[in-house]
């Protein structure tokens, strides 16, 4: 049954255990790269971290405009970090538009670092500022450190004789240098990285390194006066081992490669470019030596159909897309269900119907995943909770697909796909292999004792045999038309359709028997409130529940990986709680599934702004279940012994 997870130290007030920094600039300013390199340096310093890249949908938005702003947020600290942080402590704004778009998020008293060189009349106009905010007193709530980063960068790279434009390109490295100084970081790994990246253009490498060093040196001098302070965060103590940072897209790709190896199969990946799913295609295209064939098809339909074709021919077929593409794949998923061929479908969810919010995050494709096909077309659905978790989930998807001869959908989202977190590199040998065996001879006998082939005979899991074309003596025909339960020949008879519908359902329901029972991530196995989540809400829920528990509130976190079919014990587990709260970045889809499947009174907490939940929002929602807490707002309250039962009585 569920286990009582050990309580970990709580990240309360951000500093000094944790700091949130947001780099914001024009999409041409290289903010994602700056953020990525800062992340690496943070990881190397041993801090725990989570990041949130937030970039515009436009590839080359006009310079200086509000919709062209690209931002990268990182939360890091000496304590466990699960989210990219609610509000930044430091905002680095490379131009007026970046300041305008990101200012609202900045914590009161937070630090703004701005490049005055970009605060020209023209750029202020583009950002729709009537007056210069650096000068008109409107930033009084915050500490402001404004200086001409552009000019300082130009100065630092002068010896390299670059053109104006190229010289200014080094601005992001200058800024990074300053950030490295602020957080007491080693510059060497970055210098090594720049040298490797620009190996063919050593001048560019040297210029960037000079800018990096100049930014760093500026920190030393500026410290003498003004709000700039050096801050050293201790390393977060992690279990011993080898670590790296990983994004969800990388983790899915690596997990698929691992899954194919564990199944002892070559992998075929059919994809069609779409944000934020393309990254998986890009990663896999470079892993040919692992027996991976990637195929950029003419559309999402062809992508899934080619993958099903490859599975039919004996490889592990995989396809990946985002909501609009998943919609196109629907009919073919039905065929994979009907012909009972293994297939992994990765949906990196984005926001909204239609094109919606292509670069933002949402969890609104759950209905589509679980219910979104014609006919009774059951299909297992798994959801990754974090970038690192996506690795294990991809392996799990491969396992279910080949063991049950079924398509499986793996859900991630824009946040998981793009965000990075430290990952303890697993030992591939620690995963149990699930090698596939193909049928090589006839598998039944007729009344006269002659051998015969039944392509739709089922094993104890309800799965049919996998028969590769090319196998002597096993020629047979399959298709999407209802079939005879044994031979697979076309058979529309009422009995056959009833039998086959039941068999397909029983097979997928049976997947629940082969998955670990649902555990309780944090808190007790019974109590007043269970916060039940799935997917990328894991981080904020985890922190919010932890903080609430630290205040003595009797709340538990239950995070579900197998969203279809649900783990067999989930119903009993939830019945042990007085209240069930389901936070989701949609209008309440998992809540519906829980109510439908378990007949429990699951309550929704929904958000569809394209941004992940903030911890504070969740704390507030949790606190609302606990009477007797005065000024019950967003978990800002400290409970005392008069207001609440002692933690011991709640959690004996």
């Amino acid at each position, binding site marked *: 049954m569920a286990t009582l997870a050990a309580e*970990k130290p709580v990240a309360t007030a951000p500093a000094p255990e944790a700091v949130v920094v947001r780099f914001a600039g024009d999409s041409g300013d290289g903010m994602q790269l700056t953020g990525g390199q800062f992340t*690496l340096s943070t*990881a*190397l310093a*041993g801090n725990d971290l989570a990041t949130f890249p937030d970039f515009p949908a436009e590839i080359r938005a006009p310079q200086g405009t509000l919709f062209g702003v690209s931002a990268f947020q990182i939360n890091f600290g000496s304590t466990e970090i699960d989210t990219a942080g609610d509000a930044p402590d430091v905002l680095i704004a490379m131009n007026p538009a970046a300041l305008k778009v990101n200012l609202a998020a900045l914590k009161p008293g937070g630090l703004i670092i701005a490049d005055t060189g970009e605060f020209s009349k023209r750029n202020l106009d583009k950002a729709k500022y009537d007056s210069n905010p650096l000068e008109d007193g409107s930033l009084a709530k915050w500490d402001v450190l404004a200086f001409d980063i552009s000019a300082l960068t130009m100065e630092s790279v002068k010896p390299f004789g670059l053109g104006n434009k190229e010289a200014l390109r080094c601005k992001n490295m200058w800024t990074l240098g300053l950030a490295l100084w602020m957080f007491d970081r080693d510059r060497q*790994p970055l210098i090594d*990285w720049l040298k490797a990246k620009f190996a063919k253009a050593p001048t560019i490498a040297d210029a960037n390194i000079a800018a990096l060093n100049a930014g760093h040196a500026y920190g030393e001098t500026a410290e003498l006066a003004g709000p700039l302070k050096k801050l050293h965060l201790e390393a*977060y*103590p*992690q*279990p*011993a*081992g*080898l*670590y*790296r*940072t990983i994004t969800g897209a990388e983790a899915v790709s*690596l997990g698929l490669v691992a899954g194919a*190896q564990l199944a002892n199969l*070559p992998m*075929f990946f*059919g994809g069609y470019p779409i944000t934020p799913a393309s990254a998986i295609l890009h990663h896999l295209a470079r892993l*040919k*030596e*692992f027996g991976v*064939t990637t*195929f950029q*098809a*003419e559309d999402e*339909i*062809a992508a899934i*159909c080619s*993958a*099903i*074709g*490859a599975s*039919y*021919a*004996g490889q592990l077929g995989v396809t990946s897309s985002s909501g609009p593409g998943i919609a196109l794949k629907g*009919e*073919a998923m039905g*065929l994979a269900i009907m*012909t009972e061929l293994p297939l992994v479908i990765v949906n990196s969810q984005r926001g909204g119907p239609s094109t919606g919010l292509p670069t933002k995050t949402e969890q609104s494709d759950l209905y589509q995943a679980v219910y979104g096909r014609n006919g009774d077309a059951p299909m297992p659905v798994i959801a990754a909770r974090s970038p690192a978790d996506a690795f294990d989930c991809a392996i799990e998807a491969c396992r279910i697909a080949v063991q049950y001869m079924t398509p499986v959908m793996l859900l991630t989202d824009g946040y998981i796909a793009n965000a990075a977190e430290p990952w303890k*590199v697993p*030992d*591939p*040998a620690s995963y149990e292999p699930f090698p596939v065996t193909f049928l090589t001879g006839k598998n039944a006998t007729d009344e006269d004792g002659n051998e015969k082939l039944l392509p739709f005979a089922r094993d104890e899991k309800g799965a049919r045999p996998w028969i590769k*074309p*090319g196998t*002597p*003596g*096993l*020629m*047979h*025909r*399959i*298709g*999407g038309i209802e079939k005879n339960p044994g031979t697979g*020949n*076309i058979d529309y008879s009422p009995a056959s359709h009833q039998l086959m519908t039941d068999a397909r359902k029983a097979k997928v329901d049976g997947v629940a028997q082969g998955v670990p029972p649902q555990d309780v991530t944090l808190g007790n196995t019974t109590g007043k409130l269970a916060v039940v989540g799935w997917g990328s809400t894991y981080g904020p829920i985890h922190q919010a529940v932890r903080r609430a528990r630290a205040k003595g509130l009797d709340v538990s976190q239950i995070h579900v990986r197998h969203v279809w079919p649900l783990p067999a014990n989930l119903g009993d587990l939830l019945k042990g709680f007085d209240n069930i709260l389901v936070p989701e970045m949609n209008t309440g889809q998992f809540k519906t599934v829980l109510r439908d499947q378990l007949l429990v009174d699951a309550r929704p907490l929904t958000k569809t702004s394209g941004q992940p939940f903030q911890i504070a929002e969740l704390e507030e929602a949790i606190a609302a279940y606990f009477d007797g807490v005065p000024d019950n707002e967003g978990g800002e309250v400290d409970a005392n012994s008069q207001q609440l039962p002692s933690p011991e009585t709640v959690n004996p």
Partner: protein
Amino acid sequence: MNDMTPITTTLKDWETDQEVRWCPGCGDYAILKAVQRTLPQLGADPKNTVFVSGIGCSSRFPYYVESYGFHTIHGRAPAFATGIKLANPELDVWMVTGDGDGLSIGGNHLMHVLRRNVNLQIMLFNNEIYGLTKGQYSPTSREGTLSPSTPLGSVDRPANPCAFALGVGARFVARGFDVSKNLPDVLKAAHAHQGAAFVEIFQNCIVYNKDVFNDFAAPKGGEERQLWLQDGQPLLFANGTKGISLNRDKCCLEVVDVVDGDWEAAGVALHDVKNRALAHMLVEMPFGAFPMALGVIYDDPRPTFESAVIAQNAKASEGKVADLAKLLAKGQTWTVEASDADHI
């Protein structure tokens, strides 16, 4: 590419125990027989042969051939076939599609399978109608076609399947018709071609579009209007009394009379299966004023898609070891020492 070890089979070996469900008299029967007759002649091996189809009367075809068969979804057979060939290039893949399946819902996929040049045989059964859905007009129906969805006659102009195939870059284009005795030869040529081989097969839907090809396909009288193409041979028809010549000034084809078999004197052109411009002109000849060009119109192979993919994959893997542990630990890593591990 295909496993060409010839196997001895008979027509019977290619028949399944499934009851054929086409309407009696449907042209599909004749095509099925032609295919079942051709396969033994090719030395084809049932275990390595895969028939892939979309949806339509024509696409029921795989159920009736004793080989591996995959009846997929409407219009998408080219994508399945591409996946099959990439996963196992040794398989001999035949694709069956209809004018609706291949040119309406699946036009996009048909374009790409031809353009990519996947090594397979594509048979498009053109009956100029949607048979399975009970007779609506199709993308190849002639203007004015009366059907349940066009009770006043269709007003859109039809697509020309062979012109489409050439236009998107097909390297083999041929034509035949259901009851033609030459159909096996056309199929053999398609099979011999390494790459995507496109064969348009005119097929009589006797229920919804009866005898629309009679002008050239009728057993009696049709031959006059059939131009059977042979590489290197003169473009003659109507028992050698007529021929096709190239008007070099106008850059177009013309019908000329051939007197006493002297086609040279009449200026009749020679067929050249590698001449792409000629192929375009032959498939565009308006029927009526011209005969129907049949047989192998164009055949000029290029390396296949799957061979290029496999070669590239092999090159990219050269000298590399598929070490998963190493792959997982790629990039910048750091080690947390055991002494730090007091945290739970």
